[in-house]
């Protein structure tokens, strides 16, 4: 399989769904089934959702992943107990998630488990390093694009995006929405010096003056007061936003007289909750967006059917996306 060969070049990979029911689990199961006979040692975890409750897991369907003998996996106690395979416990974390402590285990037989994992970007990063200590060549993260999770899948070197009929029932619309996320993933990274300075800042709005100094603008969320507007541009037109950016934020900046030169820096593309229209119009007026953390998108997987019953033509969809994004696109059910 071409893209599975490609995956083996990286130490970490995230598989991320554009929306629910885009076939992320099928994609992950496919990737694992292809990797099982390889020589690489695989580790697997997922991004936990903040405040994920027992209810959400037991009453809503959370998909099981087929894991193969010898693979490492990390999941919380509560889900570990539901495993359908023989596994050897290697370590128990000291930190606790809503679903219990995280168990690191090695599969002794193949079988199914439900995965969850660390909720923060920092602990995800640490986990990847720990998996390498256990001898993993490739750590795969079952990712999510969700406001509910503070853990970002961009900590990995590479990424596979899944998209499909659930996103839209017509192909041009689906291509447009997928292309938007594709563009966000490919936003350029700021200079390394600035990355080091900003990485630890997780909230607030900050200005970066022409000397590269970072100044707290003491703005917590929405820009509503006149006073803030007056002082906003005191230090130049480069801004770092520690949290998420939204339409109203872009709208505000776009309407300023200096709108043409504004650069917004965010942690990574998952922090951009801006409609495509707003985003593109900001760029058109000369605005710029950059990130601290970037991952490489290596392939797109598609699910041409949606739970509502849409059924798109798999080949047509594949062709349309490939033409637009110049990336390999796969329907895993047809491989």
């Amino acid at each position: 399989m071409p893209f599975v060969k490609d995956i083996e070049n990286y130490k970490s990979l995230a598989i991320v769904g554009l929306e629910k029911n885009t076939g992320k689990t099928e994609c992950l199961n496919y990737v694992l089934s292809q990797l099982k006979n390889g020589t690489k040692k695989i580790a697997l975890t997922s991004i936990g959702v903040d405040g994920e409750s027992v209810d959400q897991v037991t009453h809503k369907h959370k998909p099981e992943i087929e894991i193969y003998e010898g693979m490492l996996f990390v999941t919380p106690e509560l889900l570990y107990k539901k495993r359908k395979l023989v596994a050897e416990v290697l370590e128990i974390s000291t930190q606790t998630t809503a679903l219990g402590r995280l168990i690191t285990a090695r599969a002794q037989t193949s079988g199914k488990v439900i995965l969850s994992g660390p909720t923060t970007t920092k602990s995800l990063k640490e986990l990847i390093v720990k998996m390498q200590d256990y001898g993993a060549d490739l750590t795969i993260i079952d990712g999510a694009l969700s406001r509910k999770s503070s853990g970002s899948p961009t900590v990995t070197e590479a990424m596979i995006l899944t998209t499909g009929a659930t996103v839209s029932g017509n192909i041009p619309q689906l291509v447009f929405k997928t292309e938007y996320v594709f563009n966000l993933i490919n936003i350029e990274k700021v200079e390394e010096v600035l990355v080091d300075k900003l990485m630890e800042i997780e909230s607030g709005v900050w200005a970066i003056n022409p000397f590269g100094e970072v100044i707290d603008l003491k703005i917590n969320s929405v820009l509503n007061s006149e006073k803030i507007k007056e002082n906003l541009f005191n230090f130049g037109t480069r801004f770092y936003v520690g949290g998420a950016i939204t339409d109203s934020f872009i709208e505000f900046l776009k309407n300023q007289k200096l709108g043409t030169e504004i650069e917004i820096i965010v942690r990574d593309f998952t922090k951009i909750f801006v409609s495509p229209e707003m985003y593109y119009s900001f760029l058109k007026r000369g605005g710029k967006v950059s990130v601290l953390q970037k991952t490489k998108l290596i392939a797109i997987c598609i699910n041409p059917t949606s739970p509502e019953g849409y059924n798109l033509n798999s080949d047509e969809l594949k062709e349309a996306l490939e033409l637009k994004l110049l990336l390999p696109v796969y329907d895993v059910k047809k491989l």
Partner: protein
Amino acid sequence: MLLKNALTKVPTLQFMIEDLDLKSSVGKRFLLDFPMLQTANAIEIELNLVEKVLESLVLKSTFYTKLQTKLSQLRDINGSIKNIGKNLVLDDIELFEIKHFAIIVQDIFNLQKEYQLQLIELPSLQEVIEILDPHQTNIPSFYIYDVYSDELAFIRKKIKTCKNTQYQIEEECLKELDSLFAQAEVLEVGVRSLLCEKLRISHKNLEIALNNLAHIDVVVAKANQAQKMNLCKPTFSDSSTKYISMFNPQIKQTLHLQQKKFQPVNIKLDKSVCFITGANMAGKTVVLKTVALCQYLYQFGFYIPAEIAEIAIVDKIMFLFEDEQSEGEGLSSFASEMLKVNVMVEEALKGTNVLILIDELARTTNPIEGKAIVNAVANIFFENNTRSLITTHYSGLSSHCRKLRVKGLDQAISLETFNNYNINNFIDYSIIDDGIGDTPHEALHICTILGINQEIISKAQNHLNN
């Protein structure tokens, strides 16, 4: 009284506990649940342990590095151990914890042997390891190994074969897989309950090992702190409590950061009442708080911030510090103070072996009645041989009480030399016996140094002259 209850009462005690370099959460729990010791013997045993560590800390530093690395891997598995005792069947995660723990205990057991340094005796958990590590890998990982049950091994093999052929006859195979999984699960439960039955024999030993490791963690941390803060081993006294060069480690550290020195003090407390007078800013309150701290430290088995400490054991420490607030209760500061003093007096009348420390007794009422109250309380403490220390600004105190005075400012030095930044350098904090008990009149002097509005000072001076 447990250590965790004493913590909030004396800020410096909290400072010292937070400063302790404990490696494990069990150590922390053990420490917070440590009881205030009431016999010289119990205190001596604990202090001797700390001493034993201190004596070997430098000489056998590799031992301590290794020991502390192991201790940092300790997890609080109290719950799992209790479950064994309660005849419950543990799951894989709990069994993993037990195995992981037993391996650490065994490592430390061997470490103590290798370095011929037994701090606290540990039970051998070799049996536990043998049960949970059938392949003798000594690696802390766990699952229900095939060797535990031939039948289980056979089913697992069948599952594997079935999985491999899954793609040919999917439907049938899935059904069989499900039934095989169910069979395996039943067998695993059987193995687990058998393992737990075997482990039950070692239940007591597991408990002791966890407790003793926690204790070792605490003792090593205490010794490291004693070395770092330059603390001394206190001795038991059956009469007076005596400190030579006593210091407050928290204030000492703050001053050190400002490149200033803490001036240690000597103080002796009999089974009677004792006044401390002295100017403002002379450190009376600090003395009081440090005495409270040292009493707690001693009875919780710590070394003492002093050069020499001889300490009498008390049943209870009662204190009343100036900065205590009780606005929440809706009482005036005088009312709430008197109610607290009342509790102390009642203990004194009962003849309880207490240490009472009161900062500026009756300071919030008029000086005439205030002085009368101070004398009355002091007399009760005197008559009942209550070990007590009272700071005050009042002159003319009851004649038969012992009176100490903080020396305070050197009057000979001219005012221009000070400002409110360096004033500390010119205060002599040493405590002297003061026969007359006439408090020094330095308040205006200090006001001048602090740069208080000259009008206040001159007008006050006029009042005094009239």
